[in-house]
């Protein structure tokens, strides 16, 4: 007699998995794949404002060739790259540094950990608005402090000068981004077996050597994931920079995210904006794949 087919049988595990994954797969498809496919379709049309149900415009590569030949696009790409490099670097320096600090035993450690993670809890727009006020060229507290300390003679127009505005945005992005690295690194630090340090100490390794040869390699997998997430966060950041500078002055802080928004919602160039957005997505995907592969290989 043949046994009845059942989803619970080991041989039907694949089907059970598909069945269980089905609903979430459908939701993911609806929320991610459909918009992505729609954006891809729009990027191949010379369209200003799209309309649901309207006839498709002829296929064209104009949007991509326009983007690749546009100084503004490359400037935005450069700004994004600069943000990614600087913000990631400082997020890791401060994040790992503060994680090492709050991993030590000292009175008030809990409070210190809370304070390290605090910026993460502040909504982006709120934080950006506060930074913009603090760096206000005429009435900001930063200028007042610097002048009071005798560091500057006259107020600095932080948000009206390209380099200064870029620096302000970088500071704001680092401030809101380092707690994530700190939390990840702290989790990584707590997972390192104490025996490794004991063994290194017995071999005569001093503090720096223990950090370099034990702590850092052990943190590598955590850091690789954190790196991908931080880079993606900076690449897609819109609110912080937009609230502080709106992408200005003279495009000094216009990242790819802001450039895309500007083209779509300010200039009503939906087709072109979709092309720029997809190129950005491609860059992010390439970077993530590269880092994850290297991390897995290591």
């Amino acid at each position: 007699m043949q046994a009845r087919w059942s989803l619970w049988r080991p041989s039907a595990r694949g089907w059970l998995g598909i069945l269980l994954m089905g609903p979430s797969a459908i939701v993911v498809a609806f929320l991610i794949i459909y918009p992505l496919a729609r954006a891809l379709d729009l990027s191949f049309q010379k369209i200003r404002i799209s309309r649901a149900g309207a006839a498709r415009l002829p296929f064209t590569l104009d949007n991509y060739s326009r983007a690749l030949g546009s100084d503004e696009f490359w400037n935005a790409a450069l700004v994004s790259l600069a943000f990614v490099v600087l913000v990631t670097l400082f997020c890791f320096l401060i994040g790992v540094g503060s994680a090492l600090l709050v991993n030590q035993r000292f009175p008030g450690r809990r409070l210190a950990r809370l304070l390290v993670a605090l910026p993460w809890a502040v909504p982006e727009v709120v934080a950006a608005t506060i930074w913009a006020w603090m760096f206000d060229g005429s009435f900001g507290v930063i200028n007042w402090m610097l002048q009071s300390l005798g560091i500057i003679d006259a107020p600095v127009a932080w948000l009206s000068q390209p380099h200064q505005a870029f620096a302000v945005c970088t500071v704001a992005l680092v401030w809101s981004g380092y707690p994530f690295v700190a939390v990840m690194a702290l989790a990584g630090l707590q997972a390192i077996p104490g025996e490794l340090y004991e063994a290194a100490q017995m071999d005569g390794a001093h503090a720096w050597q223990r950090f370099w040869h034990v702590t850092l390699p052990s943190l590598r997998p955590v850091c690789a994931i954190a790196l991908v997430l931080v880079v993606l966060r900076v690449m897609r950041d819109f609110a912080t920079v937009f609230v502080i500078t709106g992408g200005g002055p003279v495009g000094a802080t216009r990242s790819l995210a802001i450039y895309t928004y500007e083209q779509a919602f300010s200039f009503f160039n939906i087709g072109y904006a979709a092309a720029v957005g997809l190129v950005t997505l491609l860059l992010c995907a390439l970077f993530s794949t590269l880092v994850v592969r290297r991390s897995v290989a290591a």
Partner: protein
Amino acid sequence: MSRLRNILAALALGFVAAVPAQAQTQTKLRFYSWQTDDQSNSVWWLAANKANEAAHPGITIDFVKIPRDSFADTMMVMFSGNTPPDIVHLASFEFPSFAHEEFLEDLSPYIAKDGLDLKGWAGQEKCVVKGKTYCINLNYFGYLMFYNAALLKSAGVEVPHNWTEYLDAARKVTVAGSGQRFGVGLHTTAGAGQYLTELLAIVLDAGGRWSNAAGRPTIDTPEVMEGLRRWKLLQTEKLTPLGLKAEDIRQLFVEGRIAMRLDGPWMWSLLAKAKPELRPSLMVAETPTATPLGGTSNVIGMPANLSPKRKKAVWDYITLVTSQHWQEQYVALSGQLAPRPNSLTREVLAAKPFLATFQAAQDKAAAEGIDRLPTGFETTYNEFAKIITEEAQRMVIDNADPATVAKRMQSRALALQKG
């Protein structure tokens, strides 16, 4: 049994009677605006909505706020998704993009049918696209000068009447203010549309225009170059706080930190926020510029894809708000001028004498045919604004020659027109 039948019959009758009543209350017109809670326009809107609901039982207005910063984005998403609001309220500089895409209903047949007289209606020509009237203009403004009489007096200067006096007053107030008070207040940061408007106010005084009547850019003219030079001067001499948005500048004016501010009539209502001891010093006059900046501000229309029933309800609403009575009410309640001719009544003028100054500025700007929206750049206004803003900012940052900057602006504007 017969009792049960009677009950059922009564219930059925009640249901039949209730259906029309329910249907009557079911038409809710969606009206999204950025003016739902300001201290000027919202008072009028709310009163007009109430009047419309009273005049048209069964029609309610869902008056919802969308912040100005995200208004165009939201409208675009709504129109793209075929779910636009029933009553379309747009800023005049974003309206052409929606009209060119034919998202809006041509109002010409409605206007003809109801005999709405638009003769002399300020700024109405901006609503006509490809020969069709897609909107009714709701506000045409003339720029004014708001000033702090006490600050000017303490710096030993009179209210300026021309550029030379204006610059002199700005310098003296700034020097007396020791970095805490400024002669003028300009929007010099992100927000290209506002930047362009404020720059244009200065350029106009020098006799410059962004484009001619045929829509060709005229930025590389000596007049525009002079305007740019003046704009640069105000910033390089730090006569204005730098890097601030118009909203912040207005606030600083209300707090008594800025002596002179060229702005639209909407700023009047903000003066009420000033401290009581400061309020008497805050005054309004015609701009010291020879030609005041003028322009259409916002328009009303309806989407093309509404049902006939909703179109009628929306048109009834438009008819109400553009009627003589409600245009007069606009002046009385908002403290701004309405576009309909003769909307400023003697009684209102007696109660609000400052409106005479508003009227003079509006008339002067209208007589010169000035609009902040440059001809030839109606659908690319935001891109045009970005070009001019970026180049003007670069001029100040790099201390560049205004003549060179004007030429670069001209070539970029021409490239924009060519697409």
